[in-house]
């Protein structure tokens, strides 16, 4: 095996070791061992991400594995969000009340499913063909559904059930699209549909269009694009906060990468314009559906969930537009969204300890009742709103400009209006959260605040660095690599 293949193997095996270890490590050592394995996994994955970004040659490792710049960005994001989620999980577990599982085994099952989810999540951007990508995405469903329903409360059961059924059905539709592509290509096995060979297959264009639409419609159910997004606000708001962060900041962009690769692979057959239009349609629909909910007073995690819908729409627009500006915007948006969204979900742990009614209602005046927590919430929501100097402000400008650059002025104009409306909604929520009228009466100490404050201190310079990087990125080799894709 080559060093690169060894590294991929280590990245995929380490979290599985964590899943297995969760069943055998003594209770007293459980959290320490789990966080230790999480740190090792993240280090390996970040090394792989660096290799993918800095040495973009030898991308394919056989038919099954690919290590390219786009995958490197997502692997890096999954690594960072995964390890941060693991680090805040002990605090979440110490505060939990009840579980879907027996009390004595709940923590072990949490860690085992957490690492199993992380392992298959890391496999998604590394999958070298459509079949392997589908298998990895489907495998994320089983593990993450258990985590969504982990609390065992009625609302969590509802969220987990919706997530399981809707995404499984969606992925069934996506598999139909993949089988159609394989059949139209003359058979030979789905693993033959590699990202490199797909653009060169001689496919009937009508069949390819239908297969592409089915594939994207199915993946949309997993990404949470409107109009097949119904599970998203429920699952993200009811899952444990560390899991919500993984779902929103890591899972959605990972699946979106598969949609992006499919678009690049099938564009030569169905036309660049047609392939992009489907993504632009999903993007605009997601923005239009998300904006009204961003204007309403929502519970904190539910507000973040609707913000995910908005941001996945923005990324879909960027991918659909293509071009240097839009793709630079996409790269910045994926990373910036992951940082800000993960921080927001982690801040939900001390927020819910401080003000328990925040689980079902909008919050107000946190900046006055618990200033340090207010700063964390403010940094997260300000960045997600696209308040300058947030990197998401720059990335959204790049994506809209990218729309004009590739000759889609109407879509870019509509996106700009919807983004402005979303910005106003989230800014209103930001002001209300920080200096609005405090709503809860029974307040408690914000347990777990120190970890979240530390993460905020780390996140702020990273967000600012991203903003600076966004100005340089459009002319970089990374964006050229993204445009070239794997074909």
């Amino acid at each position, binding site marked *: 095996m080559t060093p690169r293949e060894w590294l991929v193997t280590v990245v995929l095996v380490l979290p599985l070791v964590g899943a297995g270890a969760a069943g055998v490590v003594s209770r007293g050592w459980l959290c320490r061992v789990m966080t230790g394995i999480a740190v090792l996994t993240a280090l390996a994955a970040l090394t792989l991400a660096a290799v993918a970004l800095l040495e973009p040659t030898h991308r394919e490792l056989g038919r099954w594995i690919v290590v390219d710049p786009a995958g490197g960005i997502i692997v890096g994001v999954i690594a960072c969000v995964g390890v941060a989620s693991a680090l805040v999980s002990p605090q979440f577990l110490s505060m939990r009340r009840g579980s879907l599982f027996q009390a004595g085994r709940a923590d072990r099952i949490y860690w085992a499913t957490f690492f199993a989810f992380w392992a298959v999540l890391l496999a998604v951007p590394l999958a070298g063909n459509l*079949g392997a990508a589908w298998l990895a995405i489907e495998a994320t469903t089983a593990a993450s559904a258990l985590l969504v329903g982990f609390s065992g409360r009625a609302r969590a059961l509802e969220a987990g059930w919706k997530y399981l059924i809707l995404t499984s059905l969606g992925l069934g539709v996506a598999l139909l699209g993949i089988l159609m592509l394989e059949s139209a290509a003359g058979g030979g096995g789905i693993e033959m549909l590699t990202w490199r060979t797909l653009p060169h297959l001689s496919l009937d264009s009508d069949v390819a269009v239908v297969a592409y639409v089915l594939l994207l419609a199915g993946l949309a159910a997993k990404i949470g694009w409107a109009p097949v997004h119904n599970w998203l606000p429920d699952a993200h708001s009811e899952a444990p906060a560390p899991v919500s962060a993984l779902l929103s900041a890591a899972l959605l962009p990972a699946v979106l990468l598969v949609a992006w690769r499919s678009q690049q692979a099938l564009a030569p057959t169905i036309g660049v314009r047609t392939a992009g239009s489907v993504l632009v349609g999903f993007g605009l629909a997601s923005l239009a559906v998300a904006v009204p909910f961003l204007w309403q007073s929502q519970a904190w995690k539910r507000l973040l969930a609707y913000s995910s819908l908005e941001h996945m729409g923005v990324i879909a627009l960027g991918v659909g537009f293509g071009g240097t500006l839009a793709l630079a915007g996409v790269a910045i948006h994926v990373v910036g969204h992951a940082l800000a969204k993960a921080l927001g979900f982690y801040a939900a742990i001390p927020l819910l300890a401080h003000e328990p009614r925040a689980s079902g209602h909008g919050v107000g005046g946190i900046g006055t009742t618990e200033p340090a927590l207010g700063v964390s919430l403010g940094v997260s929501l300000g960045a997600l709103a696209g308040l300058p100097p947030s990197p998401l402000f720059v990335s959204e400008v790049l994506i809209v400009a990218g729309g004009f650059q590739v000759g889609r002025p109407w879509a870019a104009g509509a996106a700009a209006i919807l983004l402005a409306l979303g910005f106003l909604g989230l800014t209103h929520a930001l002001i209300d959260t920080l200096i609005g009228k405090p709503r809860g009466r029974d307040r408690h100490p914000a347990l777990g605040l120190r970890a979240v404050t530390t993460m905020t201190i780390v996140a702020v310079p990273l967000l600012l660095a991203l903003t600076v990087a966004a100005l340089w990125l459009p002319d970089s080799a990374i964006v050229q690599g993204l445009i070239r894709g794997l074909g």
Partner: protein
Amino acid sequence: MSGIAWALVALGIGVIVIRRRSIAVALVTAQAFVLAVAALAEGASADDVVAATALGVRGVVLAALFLFLVRRTRETRPVPVGVAPLARAAAAVTLALALIWLVPPFGLETHEAEQATLSLVALGLVTAAMRRATLFQVLGIVLVENGLALAALSLPGEPSLAIEIGVAVDLLLVALVAGVFHQRIFAEFGAGDTAALRSLRDS
């Protein structure tokens, strides 16, 4: 293959209209066995035998799981139907015909296999969308997967074993997790009825 394809569709329509969970489980299990027999009848290669075995094992494990769940969650009265059986069947047939009309021929061995695949996917989607009982919604997913298994068996060339086994394992995992949720929903609400799952709504 055409007789097998339409037998699968007939069994699928049964899942849409019948009321008893155990009979619906028997119908999707029968589909799995029909598919396994079809895989064996396809050819004599080792890959065909492995594909047939994977389908058969998947069918047996799912049947055991679902029947276990039916026994563990006996309902004092059946979950209300919501939409009448004939209306469900009509909706499924309409969706199936629409798919057959919209999707161009895509290269499976026979045209009947393509039509049956699309019909089974439609039946599965309608079952999951229109049946309130949690177990029936999972059976909807199994119907979709059985349709996709038919397509996989009807592809030109050799079957893709790694993918077929992977799909079977993924389906088993999803069914297992659905089983955990089904039991917990039954314990929480006294019935495996998705109508009880309506607290998370935004206006």
